[in-house]
């Protein structure tokens, strides 16, 4: 279908494209090992987060948590904020985002363009500062509504009801699903759906490993695991460093013409790892992975050009996923 009543109705239904050049070669006569990219940058605001944003707002409206004219407050490092800002604009809400300073300039510009207000929590102060900022805001505005993507079941449900079924429809022979691990909503929702439908499918997480500055905890007990996370849905979990993420992001555009953000490079890195294992084991594999967003919002980092060392340096201390 190519005609929609509104932008919100055009969410999801993204293409799944084969990557014939990046898929590993297999010996003659061996079963094929193929990589498939789900182009989530083709959503209304250009990222996979449109799906959960729409689901979380709808669910909050239906349950009465959100009423016309309400203010939504959401801590977000970018894409969810941009998606929520679009949905809030079209549905008549005000959005206030709490975000760390160390995100790309484009994300901030986009949020403001969509009409969101931004409260920055200092990057240098680490999470302690963010906690203090957030506590202060919540105390000052007890009427603001949080959707809380890290613990909102509608986040995972968006993927259970849309991303998962789309993948199964387009690739019934799927053997692996690989996505980024942040709120964990994509992996939990899509993973649960596919595990119900496809015997033996492997659900694989790619988690960004940032530079040290980002892990600004004072001690281990300040860590956080999103409420949505259920380790039993996953089969593997890879930590992908900045260098590998940048390398793969560049390969995506150079080899397959897919211009993606750095989190997608991290996801491809994990997808290639399982694909190469399948080749070694002589097993057939159809590895579907997520292109979470396009590269446009990260151009100002300068990490698409120059040496890998330059790029790694440019992204040091940034939340690139």
């Amino acid at each position, binding site marked *: 279908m190519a005609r929609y009543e509104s932008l919100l109705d055009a969410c999801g239904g993204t293409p799944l494209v084969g990557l014939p050049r990046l898929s590993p070669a297999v010996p003659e006569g061996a079963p094929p090992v193929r990589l498939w990219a789900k182009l989530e940058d083709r959503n209304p605001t250009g990222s996979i987060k449109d799906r959960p944003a729409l689901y979380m707002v709808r669910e909050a409206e239906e349950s009465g948590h959100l009423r016309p004219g309400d203010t939504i*407050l959401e*801590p*977000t*490092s970018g894409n969810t904020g941009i998606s929520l800002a679009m949905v809030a604009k079209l549905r008549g809400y005000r959005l206030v985002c*709490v*975000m*760390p300073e160390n995100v790309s300039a484009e994300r901030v510009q986009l949020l403001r363009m969509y009409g969101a207000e931004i409260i920055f*929590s200092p*990057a240098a102060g*680490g*999470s*302690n500062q*963010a*906690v*203090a*900022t*957030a*506590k202060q*805001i*919540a105390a000052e505005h007890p009427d603001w509504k*949080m959707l*809380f*993507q*890290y*613990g909102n079941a509608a986040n995972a449900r968006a993927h259970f009801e849309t991303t998962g079924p789309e993948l199964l429809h387009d690739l019934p022979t799927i053997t692996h699903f690989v996505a*980024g*691990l*942040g*709120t*964990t909503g994509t992996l939990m929702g899509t993973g649960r759906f596919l595990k119900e439908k496809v015997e033996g499918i492997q659900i694989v*997480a790619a*988690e*960004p*490993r*940032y530079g*040290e500055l*980002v*892990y*600004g*905890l*004072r*001690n*281990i*007990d*300040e*860590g*956080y*695991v*999103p409420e949505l996370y259920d*380790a039993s849905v*996953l*089969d*593997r*979990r*890879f*930590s*992908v*460093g900045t260098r590998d993420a940048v390398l793969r992001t560049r390969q995506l555009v150079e080899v397959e013409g897919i211009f993606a953000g750095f*989190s997608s490079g991290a996801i491809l890195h994990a997808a290639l790892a399982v694909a190469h294992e399948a080749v070694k084991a002589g097993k057939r594999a159809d590895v579907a992975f997520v292109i979470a967003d396009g590269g446009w919002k990260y151009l100002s980092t300068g990490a698409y050009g120059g040496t890998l060392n330059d790029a790694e340096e440019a992204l040091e201390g940034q*939340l690139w996923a």
Partner: protein
Amino acid sequence: MAIEVRVPTILRSYTGGAKTVEGSGATLTALIDDLDAKHNGLKGRLITPEGGLHRFVNIYVNDEDVRFLGALDAKLSDGDSITILPAVAGGALGFAAAAALLGR
């Protein structure tokens, strides 16, 4: 050849400030015991009194989460690279802020 272990900033008080240390052991448990002998107290930050991996500690063997490789029983080989990280998946600061907002 030994096993290289990357230590996060918040645990470097146990390693005299060292970013990477070396250890040995055929399993993760053995490696952590070996590390603790050289860097007293480190084990207590990684393992709970009940003997499990601390909820907010992630340990990776060659970039793969050990919880999916047998956890503390994960088999190790010389030349493996181990990374210890606090649990703060993407958007670390957002998580902390979110948790605070909900009063958790």
